[in-house]
């Protein structure tokens, strides 16, 4: 689960990770008041969407309008908010369709002496979280990792202990941070690592982290993703979820216990198991088609879930055909057949339907489909299924 920058900064403040004062605004008038409340000569108005790259991104019908604006008066803050709120912001991470800006964060400015990048992710190979710091703050870290990986310093840590003091000293030495700034950095890093563990983050990224003219380390940005599997023990975080930032069909699917990801193609697929679902997309593409989605109905899918899955697939206006690929293990072919027949009655198939069944109760499942009125193109194996579904829309 992702959250907004202003929410992440509130959590940072509570966790002792230093941030600047800021106020969230949902209207231009609120942004004006926010500037006055901060009472500083300058502030930054930042569009709040879940994607990164906002500073270099632009508003859909206004290519000059960036997602992050420096303002020097309450009127400027109001104007900047008006130019962002309700508009579509396109960044390198949103894709060409962009994301609607529903709120802005008005944050006080600061006197920046140095900009750094800081992030914590799970290092899968080492099976430990790793704190990464780079002198290349404010730029795309993926690019740094690609071109100059030596500029990213890494320290793994034990979640039960957190980052050790000597590790912070090593990092500061390499970064050339000393004196009061090193003390501030030590507290900052320790607090961030603790936060990562306490809230079960999957990723915490701050780009940039800055050291101001007084030697204080501050988080100027905050991008947090939580481990969905651990939300049961961090229930307070669920209130921070913003459904506006998520694809409605994906939310609907998740509510039914289905794993769904929307794609750009026109051949919908319904599969059991994540690996098989991915491979089904792959084989559609291999035979010249374009998959419309990833959909894993899971191992223990019941008739209602599968029927709901069909509704979601058929609600996609791009859907020109459906491929059902089931290798019954725990999931039985008869369950899928029942759901298919049910869905044809309640939802109605107006596009070609190719079905490949294999595994548990396959004969019974096939017979059920043969005996029904559902217009099904049956396939004997995966290749046959992929070829038939591609041919069906040719």
């Amino acid at each position, binding site marked *: 689960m992702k959250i907004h920058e202003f929410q992440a900064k509130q959590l940072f403040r509570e966790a002792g990770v230093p941030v600047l004062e800021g106020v969230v605004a949902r209207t231009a008038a609120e942004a004006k008041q926010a500037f006055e409340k901060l009472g500083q000569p300058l502030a930054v108005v930042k569009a709040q969407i879940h994607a990164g790259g906002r500073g270099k991104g632009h508003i859909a019908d206004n290519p000059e309008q960036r997602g992050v604006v420096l303002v020097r008066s309450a009127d400027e803050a109001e104007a900047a908010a008006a130019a962002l709120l309700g508009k579509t912001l396109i960044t390198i991470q949103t894709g060409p369709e962009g994301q609607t800006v529903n709120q802005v964060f008005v944050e006080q400015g600061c006197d920046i002496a140095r900009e750094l990048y800081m992030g914590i992710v799970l290092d899968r190979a080492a099976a430990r979280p790793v704190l990464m710091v780079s002198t290349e703050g404010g730029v795309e870290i993926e690019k740094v990792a690609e071109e100059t990986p030596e500029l990213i310093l890494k320290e793994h840590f034990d979640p039960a202990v957190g980052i050790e003091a000597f590790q912070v000293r090593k990092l500061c030495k390499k970064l050339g941070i000393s004196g009061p700034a090193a003390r501030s950095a030590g507290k900052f890093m320790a607090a961030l690592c603790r936060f990562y563990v306490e809230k079960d983050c999957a990723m915490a990224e701050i780009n940039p982290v800055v050291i101001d003219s007084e030697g204080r380390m501050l988080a100027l940005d905050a991008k947090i993703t939580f481990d969905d599997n651990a939300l049961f023990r961090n229930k307070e975080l669920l209130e921070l979820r913003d459904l506006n930032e998520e694809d409605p069909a994906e939310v609907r699917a998740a509510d039914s216990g289905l*794993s769904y990801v929307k794609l750009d193609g026109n051949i919908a697929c319904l599969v059991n198991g994540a690996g098989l679902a991915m491979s089904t997309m792959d084989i559609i593409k291999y035979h010249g088609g374009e998959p419309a989605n990833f959909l894993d109905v899971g191992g223990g899918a019941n008739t209602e879930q599968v029927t709901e899955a069909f509704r979601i697939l058929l609600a996609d206006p791009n859907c020109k055909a459906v491929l059902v690929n089931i290798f019954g293990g725990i999931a039985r072919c008869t369950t899928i057949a029942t759901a298919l027949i049910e869905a044809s009655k309640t939802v109605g198939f107006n596009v070609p339907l190719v079905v490949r069944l294999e595994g548990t109760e396959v004969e019974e499942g096939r017979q059920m489909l043969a005996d029904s009125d559902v217009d099904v193109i049956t396939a004997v194996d995966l290749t046959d299924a992929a070829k038939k579904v591609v041919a069906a829309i040719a």
Partner: protein
Amino acid sequence: MSILVNSETRVLCQGITGSAGGFHTRGCKEYGTKMVGGVTPGKGGQTAEGLPVFDTVEEAVQETGADATMIFVPPPFAADAILEALDAGIRIIAAITEGVPVLDMVRVYEKVRASDAVLIGPNCPGLITPGECKIGIMPGYIHQPGKVGVMSRSGTLTYEAVWQTSSLKLGQSTCVGLGGDPIVGTNYIDLFKLYENDPQTEAILMIGEIGGSAEEEAAAYVKEHVSKPVAAFIAGRTAPPGKRMGHAGAIISGGKGTATEKVAALEDAGIVVAPTPADMGAAVKEAIDRQG
């Protein structure tokens, strides 16, 4: 021979009184696995699926001589269940549970790797030596005793591969579902070592997917240390970056973990890579034929 489990393996089920634990204990028993008991805290002294239930794994081991376990306990308690099995001296721990917090696995992983025990999973179908011992949720009847060692990060995709190798009359020595999470107890390299030394295994099929770098690391290992024919398949060539494809571990992040990179690394190591999931069995055959 086979790897990890055989007809002598004595198996417990942790979470046997839950619906999934009970259902699959029955399935394993029917397959012929030596199921010897179950564990559910607070339900010791009862019976489930005709087997004695114990409060702790330690008791269960003392009473039944179990050396393997399959874990079906809910995600919040799964890490604890794994550590309990480890503490009781269980040799093979298969964690089927999906949805274990990844930081719990950081803690568990370190302890498991420091021991002699083998953890399979979590978020996996389990493991099976056809005709001898099935520990987990895979449909037993698609398997056939034979010569291919199959290992995979995905459940149903493994069934697909097993089905194909059975149809080609190659059969399987032992099939292991590694699990779809970012941190799992056993990786490809651990199993390559075992398959390489197992006389029954004549060829190895590894089924990978996008995310992480386990396949690349395995490819480098194969190049140096594996003499048997190896075939592979990677799921997710069409997966978009930044989106989790069902499995918690199946995500391309920061441009890393793409199928293209993985396929290139595998091919570079001389591994036959199946172009589509329908060609996994054929790829194994080709790998065998190539070595003559």
